[in-house]
């Protein structure tokens, strides 16, 4: 503070300047501040530990000679992965997961992009009501509640025990929210961009390919990752709709890793969990680097 303002006459008990306070804090305040700070960081550490422990288990246990449910530094071995390779369904289930989740992701991105574009550009009565209705129904009437009708529907369509069927159901569940989010991205693209392209002779499909999709690309990338993660982590739909273990995705196969005694087969489960997690994390990192959407803060550098 370079300028010292004289206390105004109507404020006879004006507070002392803040720099004075800082220079000579009262000892009581100091102790209270330190205690507060210690408590705060202790709490933060506990919370962090609560969330970090499962992750540490996931990273350490697969390499442990004697895996257990506790987190400890491993006696290093790759035996668990060798056992995993011998398991008949482990690797094929990862392939199934890629097919099912990838299929669902492609369907969600393609159909959501087209639907969101159309809904953003065409004026039809009740458009917003339709969107909100879709979103509401899809988020409230979730997969579990709708499982019986979905099963019957798939049965009639002859899509029981088919990976295509699982992809379709997953995509159907994700589409409303995806359309809703993407429509916002499409709305943000000024109409004049498209009109400009149209005056130069671009067809509607060219407008979509050259102008609308490139501009909405961060949105499409977000939707792609979100759809993939959701479909990758699905258990229930694949569990109910698939019969043949050869077609089961990783989420379902992991459920079958038990020892003869009915105990969870920890060596197998831990190693498999790590393999199961890696593709999703890798995909997130790739998309995040490529398209630069950040989940932490919105300040432009």
């Amino acid at each position, binding site marked *: 503070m370079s300028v010292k303002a004289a206390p105004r006459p109507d404020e006879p008990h004006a507070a002392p300047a803040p720099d004075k306070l800082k220079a000579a804090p009262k000892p009581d305040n100091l102790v209270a501040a330190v205690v507060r700070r210690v408590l705060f960081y202790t709490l933060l550490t506990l919370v962090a530990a609560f969330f970090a422990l499962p992750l540490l288990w996931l990273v350490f246990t697969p390499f442990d000679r004697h895996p257990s449910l506790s987190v400890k530094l491993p006696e290093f071995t790759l035996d668990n992965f060798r056992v995993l390779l011998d398991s008949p369904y482990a690797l094929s289930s990862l392939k199934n997961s890629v097919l099912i989740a990838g299929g669902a992701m492609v369907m969600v991105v393609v159909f959501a992009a087209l639907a969101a574009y159309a809904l953003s550009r065409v004026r039809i009565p009740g458009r917003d009501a339709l969107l909100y209705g879709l979103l509401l129904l899809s988020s409230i009437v979730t997969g579990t509640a709708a499982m019986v009708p979905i099963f019957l529907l798939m049965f009639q369509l002859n899509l029981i025990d088919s990976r295509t069927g699982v992809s379709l159901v997953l995509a159907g569940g994700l589409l409303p929210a995806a359309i809703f989010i993407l429509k916002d991205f499409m709305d943000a693209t000024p109409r004049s*961009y498209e*009109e400009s392209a*149209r*005056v130069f*002779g*671009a067809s509607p499909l060219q407008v979509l390919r050259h*102008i609308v999709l490139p501009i909405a690309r961060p949105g499409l990338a977000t939707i792609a990752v979100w759809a993939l993660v959701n479909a990758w982590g699905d258990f229930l739909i694949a569990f109910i709709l698939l019969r043949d273990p050869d077609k089961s995705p990783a989420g379902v196969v992991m459920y079958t890793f038990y020892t003869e005694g009915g105990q969870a087969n920890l060596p197998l489960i831990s190693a498999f969990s790590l393999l199961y997690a890696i593709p999703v994390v890798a995909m997130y990192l790739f998309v995040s680097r490529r398209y630069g959407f950040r989940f932490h803060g919105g300040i432009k550098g």
Partner: protein
Amino acid sequence: MASIEMQGLTKTYPGGVTAVDGLDLTIADGEFFALLGPSGCGKTTLLRTIAGLERATSGTLLLGGRDVTTATPGKRDVAMVFQDYALFPHMNVQDNIAYPLRIQKMALGERRAKALETARGLGLEELMDRRPGQLSGGQQQRVALARAIAYRPQAFLFDEPLSNLDARLRLEARTFLKRLQGELGVTTVFVTHDQAEALAMADRMAVMEAGHIRQVGTPSDIFHRPVNVFVANFIGSTPMNLLPATVAVGADGAHLMLGAVRLPVPALAAGLLHDDGEEVVLGFRPEYTDLSTEVRPNSLSGPVVVVENLGATALVSVETEVQIVQAVVPQGDEPGIGEPAWVTPQHARALVYRKADGLLVAKDKENGRSVEPAAGPQTEPVPT
């Protein structure tokens, strides 16, 4: 290059709003034509209808003699520059300029070369790798122009291309655009709400109001002989003085009475006012108003209330018996606030409008331009 011809062109929006109402207009080949009007007058709708972005409800539109009333935008061979320029943010300048050529399926190397050639003509060759977001407003405008030029269209359509520039840049862009249009010789339709812009740039212009064209003519015609009160009010950087008056016919001919002040009938309306007591509007521009600080007969008088400095001139407002009247005087000659002043319209420049229909009182031959009724279907005789 092509002429643009509209016959009975009407655009009614689904809500029932008629934005363009039975328009007849011909824009000659190579002409720089301005569509001027206040916001909501239908000028932008008309431009978009020419571009094909709006489908005409009825009427015919001919481009270079070809009927394009129902053609899609891409088949009309016109290029449009939008108010926000509509540059594609994910493409660099080069790809933006080359975009029309990409649609025409020109090979990549060839269209890049053409884009560079066009950009050179506009001084953009240094900026080819930039994204539109990295350009200034003036540069963005030139890129949008370059993209339109690269398309080699039959006609350019500009939708307020100068309104996003700051005042100084706008003047430069005005000169630049006019020169460019002259060099290219491409028919250009230009939409603006700024009358100074239209007067400065256009070869001919149309003043629109509520979906109708009120007057078509050269900027000079429209400035000196606005056909009705609306146009008179709209044109001119300082608003025209419009004063209510009544016609008084005596033994010595007709005069105009403004309150108790008696003024001669202006030259243009001389011999045309015969009805004693008819209500008219006397219009005269501040530029064509004589101001005196000494007593003068047959003039409006009152104290000076405001003096605005316009640079080389000053705009003086005088509170006369009738209403405030403004006059432009050379810098240095302006009276002080509160001083009495006497103002008289210049006899040769003043205009008289009939109060009943708002139309200019002038012999049609002398006027030489269309005088159309203010209401009812518009039939616009087109000067050639």
